[in-house]
């Protein structure tokens, strides 16, 4: 169009002074007058007419005429990378449980227990106390009776009572809801084969303020305190009439659903942005949380609107720091950027204060952002690990000596420090080193080989094989630290088994994860130096998942590399290594690890009622795994995050998992500076 205009302009200049020109000039002047008048009128009319608009669409929560709520002001702006799939917590908690939906989801649920941040201490939420012992009903069932604190209401004014928990469980069970509901409220008491399973039998309101949760077994910490007791409870008053069938329930637009939080949904503009606004009538604000070096937490809630509460949880010894809960902002804005580069450009430009990114900032961008004025950097350890897995169902992965030899010969420190330039943290066991109370001392082969040089590691690995009865035509030699070993030839297992040729290590490709990809190439080379024909096979993430998690393929692979993100309660070793969870039967035990000794300790761990007992048993499990090594745990990359220190401040930034993972950008405690 601009070319058109230029052409016209040039042409018109040729016959300036003609009748036509005068006519057009007249038109133009008229047009300018109209534009000028039109603009003024528009502004006046907007001011007058906007309040009269009645055709507001359903997604518009706030009409223009609403009076601004009293309370904190300021806007906390965060970038997200993907459109939330729903604003309905039921749908989110089932299959639509992607992180972006979770970040934007309003506080439509409450729970009996929760975790304090940043130390992840178990504390009460709506429960009056932490109930740790169950009542044996004598018929094989066990019941936890939990008092619910009185005087609290949902944002629509309806009281929070024990009936909300009963309604939630009945709905989950009655409508056969899946996804995370099966984890929080495992209601299936019978498997497909008719066998009995551990389950929640019922949740009933013994009275208005007592929830009775009955299991068909006596559960421990992982199932009760870190499971059902933290499960979501919905407002019965609001949802009862909606929860008639699964489709209607999930299809419900929950923009006006009551919340147990200080923020309510404001504007949801699909594909563009989402906002929460401060609820002026909320009782869910204020309070002081104190975090102790001993790991414990004390809470002091008294905002004058809700019943006051205070309590101490865990070990409240040592130095401490306190922070006040907000909210300190009137609006929380989530703006969608489909492209990460665009999001970080907007961040540099000051358009957003924080970028919600579960994977964190890439290292090079992180270093680049360090030079931008006003930008603060945060580095934390994540919850999870990257690992190398053996298929213990197949030779040579079935041989414990082989797994130990591999663990010894792979020089993880060399790869991490020399190749990856120290960008990741080495991990030894399945428990993050940041969980200091839980992390066990390193034992077994990994400990023995830890301080050896490359030659020493190779020689130790060979000796492990020789001691276990492996034979070779020629055991080879290692010329020195700066070169590869001359590998053994004709290597055979203790019973004369010949290792298969062309064994593959399935690993993510460099586009998906260059770190694991690099590691896989080195691991393959280290194993080849032991005389085994192993090749790294970088491939698609989904391809690996199909191969190693499909029951039908459970014996069709030798090695693979992937990662796990795990919860704060370190019980994942049970899922990964208990024989009942063998992936041939659809579980998470992909190596097919089967050790009755481990199973017994894992069963005891699951039944543990106290943290001390659980830690002790967890350490025993880890010690067994250090001996058997079905996984060679490799490393974990730190979570790198950035925020605009010139516009916002957080009461803490050191938190396991980072600000995104731990508190979703912490909108409840963040303060804006402007």
């Amino acid at each position, binding site marked *: *169009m601009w070319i058109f205009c230029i052409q016209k302009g040039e042409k018109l200049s040729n016959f300036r002074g003609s009748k036509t020109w005068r006519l057009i000039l007249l038109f133009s002047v008229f047009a300018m007058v109209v534009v000028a008048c039109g603009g003024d009128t*528009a502004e006046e009319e907007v001011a007058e007419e906007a309040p009269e608009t009645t055709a507001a669409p359903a997604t518009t929560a706030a009409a223009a005429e609403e009076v601004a709520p009293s309370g904190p002001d300021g806007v906390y702006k965060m970038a997200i990378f993907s459109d939330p799939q729903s604003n309905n917590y039921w749908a989110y908690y089932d299959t*639509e449980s*992607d992180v972006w939906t979770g970040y934007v989801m309003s506080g439509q649920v409450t729970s009996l227990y929760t975790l304090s941040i940043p130390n992840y201490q178990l504390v009460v939420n709506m429960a009056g106390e932490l109930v740790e012992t169950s009542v044996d009903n004598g018929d094989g069932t066990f019941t936890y009776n939990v008092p619910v604190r009185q005087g609290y209401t949902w944002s629509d004014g309806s009281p929070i009572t024990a009936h909300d928990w009963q309604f939630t469980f009945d709905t989950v069970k009655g409508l056969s809801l899946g996804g995370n509901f099966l984890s929080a409220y495992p209601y299936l008491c019978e498997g497909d084969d008719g066998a009995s399973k551990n389950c929640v039998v019922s949740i009933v309101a013994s009275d208005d303020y007592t929830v009775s949760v009955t299991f068909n077994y006596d559960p421990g910490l992982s199932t009760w305190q870190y499971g059902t007791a933290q499960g979501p409870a919905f407002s019965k008053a609001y949802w009862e009439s909606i929860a008639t069938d699964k489709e209607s329930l999930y299809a419900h637009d929950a923009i006006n659903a009551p919340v147990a939080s200080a923020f309510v949904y404001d504007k949801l503009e*699909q594909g*563009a942005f989402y906002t929460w606004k401060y609820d002026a009538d909320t009782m869910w604000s204020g309070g002081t949380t104190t975090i102790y070096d001993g790991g414990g937490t004390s809470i002091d809630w008294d905002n004058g609107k809700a019943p006051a509460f205070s309590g101490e949880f865990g070990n409240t010894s040592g130095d401490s720091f306190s922070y006040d809960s907000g909210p300190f902002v009137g609006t929380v804005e989530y703006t969608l950027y489909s492209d990460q580069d*665009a999001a970080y450009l907007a961040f*540099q430009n000051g358009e957003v204060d924080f970028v919600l990114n579960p994977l964190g900032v890439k290292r090079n961008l992180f270093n680049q952002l360090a030079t931008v004025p006003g930008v603060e950097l945060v580095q934390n350890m994540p919850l999870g690990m990257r690992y190398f897995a053996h298929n213990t169902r197949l030779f040579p992965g079935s041989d414990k000596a082989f797994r130990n030899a591999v663990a010894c010969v792979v020089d993880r420190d060399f790869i991490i420090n020399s190749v990856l330039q120290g960008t990741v943290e080495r991990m030894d066991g399945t428990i993050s080193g940041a969980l200091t109370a839980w992390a066990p001392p390193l034992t077994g082969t990994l400990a023995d080989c830890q301080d050896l040089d490359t030659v020493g590691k190779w020689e130790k690995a060979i000796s492990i094989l020789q001691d276990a009865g492996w034979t070779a035509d020629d055991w080879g030699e290692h010329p020195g630290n700066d070169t590869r070993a001359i590998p053994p030839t004709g290597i055979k297992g203790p019973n004369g088994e010949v290792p298969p040729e062309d064994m593959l290590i399935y690993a993510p490709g460099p586009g998906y994860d260059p770190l694991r990809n690099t590691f896989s190439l080195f691991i393959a080379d280290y194993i080849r130096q032991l005389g085994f024909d192993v090749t790294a096979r970088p491939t698609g993430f989904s391809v690996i998942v199909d191969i190693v998690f499909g029951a039908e393929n459970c014996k069709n692979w030798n090695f693979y590399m992937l990662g796990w993100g795990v919860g704060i309660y370190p019980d994942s070793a049970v899922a990964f290594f208990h024989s009942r969870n063998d992936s041939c039967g659809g579980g998470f035990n992909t190596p097919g690890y089967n050790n009755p000794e481990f199973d017994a300790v894992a069963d005891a761990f699951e039944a543990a009622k106290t943290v001390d007992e659980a830690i002790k048993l967890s350490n025993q499990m880890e010690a067994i795994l250090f001996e058997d090594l079905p996984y060679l745990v490799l490393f974990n990359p730190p979570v790198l995050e950035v925020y605009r220190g010139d516009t916002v401040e957080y009461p803490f930034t050191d938190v396991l998992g980072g600000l995104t993972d731990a508190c979703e950008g912490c909108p409840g405690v963040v303060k804006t500076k402007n």
Partner: protein
Amino acid sequence: MYKYVFKRIYQLIIVFFLFLVTSYVLFDSIPGNAFQNLLLNPELPPEAYEQVIKLYGLDKPLTERVFLYIGNFFQGDFGYSYKHYPRTPIDLIAERLPRTLMLFAMVNIVAFYTGFLIGKILAWRRGSKSETWITVTSVFSYTIFYPWFALMMLWFFGYKLDWLPIGKFLYPEKWYDAPYDSDVIFVSMIKFTAVVSILQILVYIFTRNIESLNLRRNARFAGFMVLTIASLFYWNSGDLLIQKPYAMDIAYHMILPIFTVTVVAFAGTALLTRTTMMEVMKDDFILTARAKGLSQRRIRDRHAARNALLPVVTSFIFTIVTIIDGSVLTETIFSWPGMGQLILQAVLEEDIPVAMASFSFIGIFALIAHFIADISYAYLDPRIRIQSQG
């Protein structure tokens, strides 16, 4: 002619059926599935995965699922989105389509018009210095690595100069109290653009027989001015007065993507127009026009360019499909949540119902576009008619 049309329709039906089957099988053959995340969450019991696989019928054999899908498709049942249950693919497409239509209709019109004008000038100035540097620039922009270029444009105009927004299609803070959601505004903008475009074409048609070049141009310019003034009145009346600031916000956010895509896309049309027009200019009727003593500009615009337009318009018809499917790259880089992003997301998440519905929609549109082009050719070129009759 009728026989030819029926034959083409028959072929289109077979092609569409094959398209549906092939698309479904290809989507299904992507490793993993939409519910893989359940399989990878150690906090969840295995039943969570098994339950959902049964719920969506993914435990059935592929052939059964393909024919079930096609059967349901022709009954207008596209199923539920796996990722946005219980929303249907049609819901999601209806939400995204206006945004893509608005952006890419403008992109295509601007890119085509610019390309055609530049191509025309290039052919006419053959051998001149300006032809050389414009051709070099066109080839450069035609072959540039688009994602890099688009990011550079964002960085330069959005971050460095701070003239234009860095992606998105609106400024959230301007919409906090908006009485409409953006789709309402998009629909108004699309209606407005369509009406204005039709009127502009009518002006062009009604003035095309005015013999005097100056008078014709003046008449068209006057028509343009009248349309502009009418547009101002239109946007300052009734409901549209309230919508205007929001429409302007969206229009402001459209500038950079339109400019960026135009810089890359105009070159194709320009080079095609140049080549075609150079061929036309060798024809005898151009020589005749010159012999008649017509002005150079008249020969160029009314004789050569018009005859060169046919293949260019044909290529434009085929590019219209991009108005529907958008562009994954453009929409991703400029955070423009349209059909391109919906398709990308559906494919990445293996949301087969949404991916299939989107592709089917595009497929139908593409087939219709080809059908129209074929029929037009048969109509315009007697050789095709005669061949089909033979």
